[in-house]
């Protein structure tokens, strides 16, 4: 690395939420208020999840593994369950599959609401986070009703979900998504069409198609750069191939504005999926009996399972030696490439005032990079 000589300032953003939902810091060098170099600095959230899973029975990892990502914990649970189910060739009951789709898409909505609030907050539009956090609470209420927990749901289990949906739950889900759909108009007025946002976000932090592919960018960030790739469409997992939904492709600029707007339109698609899942959900059992949690074994072998999280492609590589505990579990989070690699590339030349917005628009979740 070449030594930087001509800078005016050297300072740190973070480790208190530097434009990311977890703790990490960025070491920034700037000339005036133009950033000339940025170095991500991790380690504030390393809790050794991957190693901890190796010490616990398969079932005992459910309450642990989801803690990797606070804004969207369900993806971890589902992935972990999917990995075990694939290794043990378990047929998950139909009803549980539909419940999982609803849970995953509600989690995506909740993560996007947090995201919108976060981005708006970085440019001083403080009403937006207050509204989105408020609206997110309606989703958390649904989760509380379904799973008994608001943020950490610990709802998935091997071969399904732990409990059936409560009576009248589907109706309340539909009511909530109807409300959120209506609220999008308010958000358009308040945020997405807000001149300040447009002015601040357009043309800032551009990730072009080539860079996106080179840096392994995934998810809405990749789609906003003009590459229409969505795991739900390209390699459908669970039962995503049964639902009609589009992957919005009107934003191709790869700038902060595109990234936010990409998500705003994906928000509507998630609502579509939830409505279909609620309508098509069959009756039946929601899980299988694992019989004995202490002697539950997973067949020897390894598997990589992935899904489309709100942040991008999220994957688990799980290795089993046929024992009662995982032999190795590795998490592939999108934040590693977004928050550590990509930032170095795109932050150069931007203003200090924009850096938090750029970071937040990439939707970085530090714990999924440092597990």
């Amino acid at each position, binding site marked *: 690395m070449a030594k930087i000589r001509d800078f005016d300032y050297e300072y740190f953003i973070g480790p208190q939420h530097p434009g990311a939902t977890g703790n990490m810091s960025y070491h920034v060098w700037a000339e005036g208020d133009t950033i000339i170099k940025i170095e991500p600095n991790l380690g504030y959230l390393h809790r050794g999840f991957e190693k901890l899973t190796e010490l616990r029975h398969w079932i005992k990892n459910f309450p642990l593994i989801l803690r990797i990502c606070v804004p969207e914990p369900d993806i971890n649970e589902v992935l972990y369950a999917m990995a075990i189910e694939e290794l043990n060739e378990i047929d998950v009951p139909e009803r549980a599959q539909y419940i999982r789709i609803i849970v995953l898409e509600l989690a995506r909505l909740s993560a996007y609401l947090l995201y919108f609030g976060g981005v708006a907050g970085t440019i001083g539009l403080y009403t937006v986070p207050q509204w989105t956090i408020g609206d997110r609470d309606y989703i958390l209420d649904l989760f509380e009703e379904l799973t008994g927990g608001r943020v950490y749901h610990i709802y998935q289990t091997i071969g399904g979900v732990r409990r059936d949906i409560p009576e009248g739950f589907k109706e309340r889900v539909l009511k909530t998504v109807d409300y959120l759909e209506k609220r999008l108009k308010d958000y358009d007025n308040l945020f997405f069409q807000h001149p300040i946002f447009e002015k601040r976000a357009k043309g800032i932090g551009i990730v072009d198609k080539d860079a996106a592919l080179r840096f392994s960018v995934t998810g809405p960030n990749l789609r906003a750069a003009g590459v229409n790739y969505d795991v739900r469409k390209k390699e459908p997992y669970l039962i995503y191939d049964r639902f009609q939904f589009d992957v919005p492709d009107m934003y191709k600029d790869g700038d902060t504005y595109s990234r936010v707007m990409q998500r705003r339109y994906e928000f509507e698609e998630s609502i579509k999926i939830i409505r279909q899942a609620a309508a098509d959900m069959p009756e039946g059992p929601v899980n299988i009996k694992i019989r004995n*949690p202490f002697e539950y074994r997973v067949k020897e072998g390894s598997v990589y399972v992935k899904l489309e999280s709100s942040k991008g492609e999220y994957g688990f590589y799980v290795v089993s030696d046929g024992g009662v505990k995982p032999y190795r579990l590795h998490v592939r989070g999108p934040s590693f490439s977004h928050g550590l690699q990509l930032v170095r590339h795109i932050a150069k030349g931007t203003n200090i005032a924009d850096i938090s917005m750029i970071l937040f628009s990439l939707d970085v979740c530090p714990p999924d990079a440092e597990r």
Partner: protein
Amino acid sequence: MGLNLKFFDALKFLVRKPHTVRVPYEKKEVAKRYRGIHVNDWSKCIGCGNCAKICTCQAIEMVEIPTLEPKMGQTNLRPQVDYGRCSFCGQCVDVCPTGSLKLSTEYEIISSDVKDFKFIPNLNHDSGPGTGWESDTETSFLDFNRVEMPERDPAERKKDFEWVLEGFSEEEAIFEATRCLGCALCVQGCPTGMYIPEYINAIFHKNYEKSVDWMFVNNPLPEICGTVCTHRCEEACVYHNRGQAIQIRYLKGFAAGKVPDYEKVVGISKKRTGKKVALIGAGPASLSCAFYLRREGIDAVIYEAQEAPGGMLKLGIPRYRLPQSILDKEIDFIKKQGVVFKFGTRVGKDITFEKLHEEYDAVFIGTGYHIGMTMGIPGEEGKDVFDAATLLKDVSLGKEVKIGKKVLVIGGGDVAMDATRTALRLGAEVVILSYRRRYVDMPASDEEKHEAEAEGVQFLTQTLPTEIVRDKSGNIVKVKYVETEMVYEEGAKRPKPVPKMDDVKEWDIDTVIMAIGQKPDWSYLPEKWRKMLKFDKRMKNIIVNDDMMTDIEGVFAGGDVVNPRKDAISAIADGRKAALGIIKYLGIKR
């Protein structure tokens, strides 16, 4: 473009209910399924410790409660939760076999003392049934249904004396063995305290030799017990509280059956101490005692009046329940250990008790209860009236036994069930079982009752035969009976049957089998010796000390003559205990 949020758009938010809860003026209303504070119903909790075992945060610790008495299927441990660690995942609830544990909708514990956040849950924070995170048998991780033992078709099996069970397949056995949580409460239920979780775990790993090795620690007749044991362990099993216990008995039988030669696993003791012990009766108590004596190098000689070993295992239990091949396999292994059998030698007739006492370093009495009792009703003297013990013995020994087509069996215990089913196999067309109390009061095990019913035995409960009517040539033609009424008396454990004597009814019967109980035969013991022994109040059982030694020095006893439970596994337990007592008495270092 532009600032589109109109003034009036904003106005609508003025009248909307806020999302937030104004603590402390308002309390947050939580969802019905909320995972809040732990609640543990002590009346259901058995202290098995599975909640502590599954806790991924290691927040649950089992602590001893001095005020609680441990009893069968229950420990005096209760979970203690540490809220400095708990993550409220509720897996402890989903693994709780009894359903005593739940998370309530309460979520507030306010204290300035950090110790208050580490507590032993009870019903204090309970929010009522149907609230909070509860687990039923459906939502539990556990499977409360056992793998049923395959049996032969009742219509077919009642025609012969072949084994009624078909046995588990390996797949079934391992599937059933998977259910064992390893909490070991069953061990308390087993009279001989077998290492049940250990041997089931070995079965799970298909290591049947290791499994048998665990069994032989305190039971030298594992396959016999794996077939006909009264399985008190299954009553103590944690699954028994809300569902079906693990098939502990048949799993044991399965594993023992998978090892054709015990010698490879257990070996033959080469020890010699020069001491010798005489054992009277070749039943399970003596077999067990002799086995463990031989393991320590003590010579054991068993005196048996019959021509075959096994005692009640051979003479009381019919072959369709316990095949001869299993008996032979296990008793032959005991013979292989160097135990000497003297068949056809009745103590008191062929050799005196005094002589045994003189010649041997110790004597073990394991003579059991083998004299069948009769009711003492008019007409019972004469042909076609049997006591069940004699009938079963004769059938087992292969003697020719002739019974009629319409058989009445009187009694409600396991022996009565054996008598009914043996009668069917001897060619009876109608078998009636008369029992003076209710169906639920029958001492016979449920499975024997069900098996007898499936084979077509008619159960006539709350009936009491009063007279056997014979024709001029002495053949039974009828049995007169009255019905009984159950009367609850104050202080009594169970209601008493009171006969309605004025309403006498009749059955068409040609054979009567009485299975109303058995008694010991003390005729071999001279009066002098009998007086030296101490008996219980009802003069039924010998009283022994902790080492199974009677009041006569060097004379030990075990099995039915000591143990009120009167089953094979108690006899085996007694035999082993007596062997340890004898080893101690003879001063042999183990």
